[in-house]
C-alpha cells in the first residue's frame, strides 16, 4: 500500500472534489482518496500491484485537472 500526493493547479469550484473522488474511487486498487480543495492536492492510498501513480495522474488529468507534481511514499 503506497501513498501518492498529487498537486493540481489551484481548484476553484468545490464540486471538483466530488468529481475527482468519484472517478478515482472507481479505479481498481485505490483504497482511499482525499481531495484537499484548499491546498489543491489529491491524496490517494493505492496498491502498487494493481495501479500505478502515473495511471492515477492520467485519470485526474483526463478529468480536466492538470497535475503539477506527483510524490509517492
Amino acid at each position, binding site marked *: 500500500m503506497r501513498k501518492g500526493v498529487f498537486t493540481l*493547479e*489551484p481548484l*476553484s*469550484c*468545490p*464540486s471538483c472534489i*466530488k*468529481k475527482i473522488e*468519484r*472517478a478515482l474511487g472507481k479505479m481498481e486498487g485505490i483504497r482511499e482518496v*482525499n481531495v*484537499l*480543495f*484548499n*491546498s489543491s*492536492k489529491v491524496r490517494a492510498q493505492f496498491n502498487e500491484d494493481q495501479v500505478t501513480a502515473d495511471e492515477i495522474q492520467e485519470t485526474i488529468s*483526463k*478529468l*480536466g485537472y*492538470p497535475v503539477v507534481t506527483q510524490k509517492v*511514499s
Partner: protein
Amino acid sequence: MNAKRTSQITAVSAILLVLAIVLHFTGLSDAKQWTLITATAIAGTPITWKAIQALRMKAFSIELLVTIAVIGALFIGEYVESAAVTFLFLFGAFLEVRTLEKTRSSLKSLIDMAPSDATVIREGETMTISIDDVLEGDRVIIRSGEKVATDGVIVTGNATVNESAITGESVPARKAIDDRVFSGSIVDNGFIEVIADRVGDDTTFARIIELVEEAQESKSKTQKFLDRFATVYTPAIVLLSILVYIFTRNIEMTLTFLVVACPGALVISAPVSIVAGIGNGARHGVLVKGGEIMENLAKVDTVVFDKTGTLTKGRPEVMDIHTISGDENELLRLVAEAEVISEHHLGQTIVKEAQKRGITLVNQPKDAEIIEGNGVRVTVENKTLTVGNRKLMAAKDIVIEESMESYAVQREKAGSTAIFAAIDGVVHGIISIADQIRPEAKEAIQELRANGVKQIIMLTGDNRHTADLVGKQLGLDHVHAELLPEDKVAWIKQLQAEGHVVAMAGDGINDAPAIATADIGLAMGEGGTDISMETADVVLMADRLDQFSHAHALAKVTILNMKQNTYFAVTTVFILLAGVLFGKVFLASGMLIHEVSVLLVILNAVRLMRYTKKERKRNVPNRVLQPE
C-alpha cells in the same frame, strides 16, 4: 484544458467583445453578430468541455447549466447575451482563482519556507543534496542566511535562528550546542552543524503543514449545513425553473433563472472565511485544527488553565544568590560542582545557572552522598559542602544563623524555594529558585476577558500557597489547588454541566485527560511535541499565551466573517431570483451580479488574512516561586 489556456481564451473573448462594441457604433451589424457568435464559440468551448467531462462522471455541474443557457440564447438569436455570459463566466472563474489564492496564501507562504536542498558532510566530504535525500543521522551544515533542512540537534557552532515558520515568533532565538533546531527555520547569523534526527515528512515543519492542510479541509457545522442545503437546493431550483417555464412559457427567463440560481457564492461563503482564519492563525503560531473547532473556540466563555508549564514557564530558575562573603559566582561554582551528581531538578537548575554565567566547573565531587528529597553532601576542593533544605541542615547539625533564617523566610514568602549552602558546617549562602509566570500571561488574560470570556480558572496539582499567589498576581476568578488529573476532569465536567463552553489549556502530558474533556483542548506545542500536536484542538507553537488570546479573538472575527458571507450570499441569490421572475434581471446582468457576489464574498474573507491585534509592549516578568 489547463489554466493558462483558459485565461488566453478569456482574453481573446474579451477582445472580441470590445470589437463587437466598436462594430456596433460603426453600424456594421452583420459583422457585429458574427463577432459575437465567434466570441461565444471560443469562450463556450472550455465551458462545454468541462460540462461534458462532468457528465461522463455522471456529475451535474454549473458548466452544464451555462452551456444549456448559452445554446438557448444562440437559438433565440440573443448573441449579446450568449457572448457576455460565456465571457463573464470564464472571467469570473479566473478572478475567483486569483482571489482564492489570496485566502490560501498564508499556507502557501508557509510551504514556500520549506527548504529545497541541504549541505551535508558524508565520509568527510561536503556535498549539497536535495532535501529528499537527507537521511537520519546525516551531519548537516547551515550557514548564515540558509534554511535549516531537517530537525536535529546542534553538534558544533552557534547561531541566531529565526523560527517564525514553526512558532510564529519573529524574534530570532539564540541556539548553541545541544539545542534543537527545526526544519523551516532560517539561520540569521552564525554557523551550525546539526545531526539530523527527523527528515522529510517527519519533521515538525512538515507535520505542521499537513495539519494545517487537513484543518482547512475539515468542515465547520455551518459548512456541513450549507452542503446539505445545496443538495436540496439544486433539485429544488430545477423543479422551480420547470414551474417557471410552465407558467410563463418563457425559455429565456427559465434559463436565466437556472443559471442565476447556481449556489456558487453560497457554497464558497463559509469555507473561504475558515481557510483565511486558519491561515492567519498558522502564520501567528497557532494551529486551529478545523472549522468546527474555530466555531467552538468563538463560543468559549470559560477558560481553564493548568499552572506549571502553562501560566508559568515550568522551568525553575535561580532568582537570587545571597552570600556572606559577597562573591556570588564563587559560591555558585562550589555548589554547582556539588550538584553535578544530583538528579533533582532544583540541583540541575543550579548547574544550569552556573553554565549560563560561563563558570567552568573544574572539580570532581568526592565522597558524594545524596539525601533523597533533602539535598547533597560532598567533598569539593577538600571542603565539605552541604547543600539542601532546612531538614538537611538540621540532620547534619548545621546551625542556621538568625539573619540567614529571616532572609530565607522572606524569600519563601515571595514564593521562592530557599536552598542553604553550608561549607565545612557553616551556612555561607542561600540560593533562591523560582518558577516564573509567563511574561505575557497577564495581558493575554486581560485580552481574553475583553473578548468576552466570562471566567478564568486555574486548576493545579501544586500546593495552595503557590497557587493562590499566582492566582492573585494574574487576577484569576477561581483557583483550585492540590488536584489530581481526574479532579481536573471532574471540575471541567461540572463547568460544562453548568452550561459553560470550556477551553482547557495545559502542557500536554498530565493534563491530557482534562484537555480531552474540555470543549476546546489547548496544548503548548513546545516547538512541536508530537502528542500535543496530535491530540489538542488548538496548539500554541511558541508556548505563548498571547497566541491563545489571538486565536480566541481570531475565531470570533472568523465566525462573524463567515456569517456575513453566508447571509450576503443567500440574500443575493434570493434578490436575483426575484429580479428574474419580475423581469428586471436578464441572463448577462444576472451572471454579472452573481460573479460580483462571489468575488465580494472572497474579498471579505481576505480581510481576515490581515487581522492582527495591536502590537503591545511586553510586561516585565512577574516573579513567583515554586516551592517543592
